[in-house]
């Protein structure tokens, strides 16, 4: 198991920052627009992960400059034993965040039950066609929705959606509508700061940032569905 970043960051949800974010290399998805595409697609990038050493680093910053610890990737679920070792080595009082694409198995989530205070879920695609085309992942919606409902029942859930250019109606709208019906009141962070990273150029619509008009329409969709948006 390797990791490619471990530092205090303030770019996540306001109520979670500053957070000590530990990013494990490797991911089960192949999002062409991944902003950490190199180490996310290649689990051999980064440095060897030592759970006890990382926990010691986390404890140091918890005392000084961070109020939460976030485990992410890539996708941390593919490194479940290492993530669990890290949790064991952390103090019980630490507020822990599991940042995931929610495409893990039922067995994986059962092993995670009760370990993390917050599940921060990237709900990336609003339909299986976009998921298959942009991330080469089959059966996306079914798996993610199941995990979202489970996470809401077992922890504090926050949902994040990275607004993609050209995907307001096919991805954001169905995501917003599903959340409104199935997870009303859940905290949602709509992020318009897409940038064309990694292999985004393989898809014509992803070769630009989100336009002002798209951001405005996305916010309208959120308001129409009475979503609980958080910064």
């Amino acid at each position: 198991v390797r990791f490619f970043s471990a530092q205090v960051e303030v770019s996540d949800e306001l109520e979670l920052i500053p957070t000590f974010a530990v990013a494990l290399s490797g991911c089960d998805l192949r999002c062409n627009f991944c902003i950490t595409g190199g180490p996310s697609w290649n689990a051999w990038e980064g440095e060897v992960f030592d759970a006890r050493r990382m926990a010691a680093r986390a404890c140091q910053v918890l005392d000084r400059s961070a109020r939460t610890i976030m485990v992410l990737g890539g996708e941390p679920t593919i490194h479940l034993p290492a993530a669990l070792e890290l949790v064991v080595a952390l103090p019980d009082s630490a507020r822990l965040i599991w940042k995931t694409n929610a495409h893990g198995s039922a067995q994986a989530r059962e092993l995670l039950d009760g370990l993390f205070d917050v599940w921060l879920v990237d709900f990336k695609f609003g339909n299986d066609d976009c998921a298959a085309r942009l991330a080469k992942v089959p059966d996306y919606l079914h798996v993610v929705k199941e995990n979202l409902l489970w996470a809401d029942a077992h922890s504090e859930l926050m949902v994040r959606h990275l607004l993609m250019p050209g995907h307001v109606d096919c991805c954001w709208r169905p995501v917003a509508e599903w959340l409104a019906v199935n997870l009303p009141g859940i905290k949602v962070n709509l992020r318009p700061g897409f940038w064309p990273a990694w292999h985004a150029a393989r898809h014509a619509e992803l070769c630009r940032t989100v336009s002002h008009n798209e951001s405005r329409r996305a916010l309208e969709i959120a308001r129409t569905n009475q979503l609980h948006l958080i910064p």
Partner: protein
Amino acid sequence: VNEQRNHQPPKRIAVVQSAASPAHGQRGHQAPSGVRRLETGDETEGDSALPHSELLILPDGRILVHNLTPAFADLLHHLNPDEEQITARARPFAHHAAHVASHELPD
């Protein structure tokens, strides 16, 4: 927009806030195409010990940031104190920095 015509992603800049070795790209985090690292000094630990943020500066003046560290949020806040999103993220840092300075840092 240029990138819409040729399907090339815009350039971005990775800012390394502390020491880095010239060889760091071979050992761990590999800078993506289009990223220019700003390096200073010698590296004594692995790349993970180097705080880093990435910026994408757009032609219309927008700045997108990835892996925003407290120090970099503070810097951006000073450059543009009216930017609400950055201000909100710089404030916790300012609070912590003040706390650290007054109670935990050696004289």
